[in-house]
């Protein structure tokens, strides 16, 4: 028994890796599905912030991430743009990360095609801007100064959607889908605190805890945290909007659930071995 406990205390990390891989692959392969309960929370807050906007409002989405975090943030981008287009809200896309512009284009084009939204009338992709917070500060007085043309080179004044949107304060809501810096921090500091524009956010799961401080003070109207946040949003859309399609986040929840259980199982094994072996060790444990 003692030897077993010793071995359990020092499980080879490769065993852990193999079981983790299996815990992710098997649920995806078997297409396991767990119901996702939706209650009040930051995901619902963001949904309501969008749903209470009158049709014809303008929302700016900043795609501040790159392909390495696409798995968590792209499903949010697709779900949000679907909701916005379906609600009759106009969408201005932009990015403070270089690859964010093309990822945003994919999300907006995909949603626009399925919902019949017209580019330049209902949505536009302004593209990437270098300068992060400085760009946002300049957009507060003139968006055209930062984006004289959109991502495809169409001049600002030729875009019907932008005719009555001259500065940041003219939008009704800003959403930053952020994988790091620049991202939500810049939007809260510039758009919300300086110009009073309501800001919503989407972020990777590891960053979500630090943004709860902004939720508490009302500087963020809502937050989608990680794959769970994206799955929450997809579920809310399916429950509240008949015919809303599924997304990529919901199937990932089953895999995440099983992998969390595997991690917890290893923690329990490690603690059982640790506690059982502690009485045999002299001196304090670490």
């Amino acid at each position, binding site marked *: 028994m003692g030897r077993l406990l010793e071995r359990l205390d020092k499980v080879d*990390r490769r065993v852990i890796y193999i079981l983790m891989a299996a815990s992710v692959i098997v649920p995806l392969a078997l297409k396991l599905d767990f119901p996702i309960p939706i209650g009040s929370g930051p995901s619902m807050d963001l949904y309501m912030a969008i749903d209470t906007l009158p049709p014809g409002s303008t929302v700016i989405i900043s795609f501040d991430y790159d392909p*390495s*975090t696409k798995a968590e943030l792209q499903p949010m981008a697709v779900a949000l743009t679907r909701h916005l287009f379906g609600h009759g809200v106009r969408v201005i896309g932009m990015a403070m990360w270089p690859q964010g512009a093309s990822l945003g284009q994919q999300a907006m084009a995909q949603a626009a095609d399925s919902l*019949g939204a*017209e580019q330049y*009338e*209902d949505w536009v992709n302004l593209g990437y801007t270098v300068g992060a917070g400085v760009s946002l500060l300049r957009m507060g*007085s003139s968006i055209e100064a930062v984006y004289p043309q959109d991502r495809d080179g169409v001049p600002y004044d030729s875009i019907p959607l932008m005719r009555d949107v001259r500065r940041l304060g003219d939008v009704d809501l800003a959403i930053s889908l952020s*994988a*790091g*810096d620049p991202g939500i921090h810049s939007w809260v500091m510039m758009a919300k*605190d*300086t110009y009073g524009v309501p800001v919503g956010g989407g972020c*990777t799961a*590891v*960053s979500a*805890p*630090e943004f709860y401080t902004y939720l508490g003070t009302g500087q963020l109207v809502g937050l989608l945290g990680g794959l769970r946040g994206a799955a929450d949003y997809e579920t809310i859309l399916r429950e509240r909007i008949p015919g809303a399609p599924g997304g990529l986040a919901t199937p990932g929840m089953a895999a995440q659930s099983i992998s969390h259980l595997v991690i917890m199982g290893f923690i329990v094994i490690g603690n059982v071995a640790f506690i059982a072996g502690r009485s045999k060790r002299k001196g304090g444990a670490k």
Partner: protein
Amino acid sequence: MRIASIAPLLLWTLAVAQVSAPPGLASGPGTQPGAADSCSGCPAAAGCLTCAAPPAAATARLLDISAADVPNDVGGAVELAWTMSEEGVPADSVQVLRSAAGAEPEEAGWILPAAGSWADEGLRDGVEYTYTLVPWAGGVAGAPAGSASVVPAASWFHMGRLGMFILLTILTLVILAYIERAKRGHKLYVREIAGISAVDDAVGRATEMGRPILYIPGIMDMDDIQTIASMVILGRVASKTAEYGANLLVPNTRSVVMSVAQEVVKEAYLAAGRPDAYRRENINYLTDDQFGYAAGVDGIMVRQRPAAIFLLGTFYAESLILAETGKSVGAIQIAGTAMVSQLPFFIAACDYTLIGEELFAASAYLSHEPKLLGSLKGQDAAKLVIMILILLGVAAATLGTAWPPAAKAADFLRLLTHVD
């Protein structure tokens, strides 16, 4: 294009096709390309939708027009405000006419009357501008609503940030006061931080094992304060490695950081009297890409098997990748960052972690310089000031729900800590 938006567009197109704009007419909401001859003799000669529609009753007036300089700005901006009267035909647009110091009025813009206010920018400071607002309804101009004059000016101080200025001044004076105390020879107690005390042991361990020391200064550029703090600590660590004769590797993700790191290490080796031991090629550039850098550093760890790894600076998602790989090669790891989201990973995977401000305090600890220790004490005193403010604010806000004077105190504290 959605069906719902086509019909009004068609109607508008047909309406426009009925008329053509008179030459020289400025365009804007409320004016349409009007008829050339068919509108002659029309009382609304400035432009109309169609002369078949005679002017209606007088357009509603604009009241209480005011113009004021925009406060706390760089200058050249003014803000107009007005209200609409209830009588008359509601205006569908407002034309803003501007004249500067006796010059002819020019059109400054068109706005919706419901806005109630409008900002004009790009003006010259010190010049008096007079604004006249003209309400328009159905293409017919109403009576000008009077005018307001204003002189734009730049502000020398942003009053919305006065509270922050006061707080910053207090904190700065506290920190400088403690530095002064330290310079005068007062003994200042600072508690031990395990991670900083372990630096010597880590360098010694690497020397004994004959394995290198790996120093990772984070993934941000020199404009990040954590990177600067990391460079400061690098200088101290480099002094020790020069003294002990250990090999120091510093892979960088930014070129500027690499240049600074090379200079810092070179100077440290010079000061330690070991310029011959300095190896410029050990302080190199890998890549700007976040995960490319993580992969490169992991490769260095697995191949070179350092005995001690320092992870000090700004880190993002690659923090756990680096720390776990370092753990797997058996190195003693000392990490430090102010990135709150990455601290849990360092705490789980590293032997010692400097949390938040401890990273900035490390330089003072390692040098034992009185001035730096004094600033550390000052920082703690400043923290005490902030804690007192928080407690006072919480008490005032809580009591303020039932006791008005406390509510006023809470408002004052909010004003003090608010930043525009």
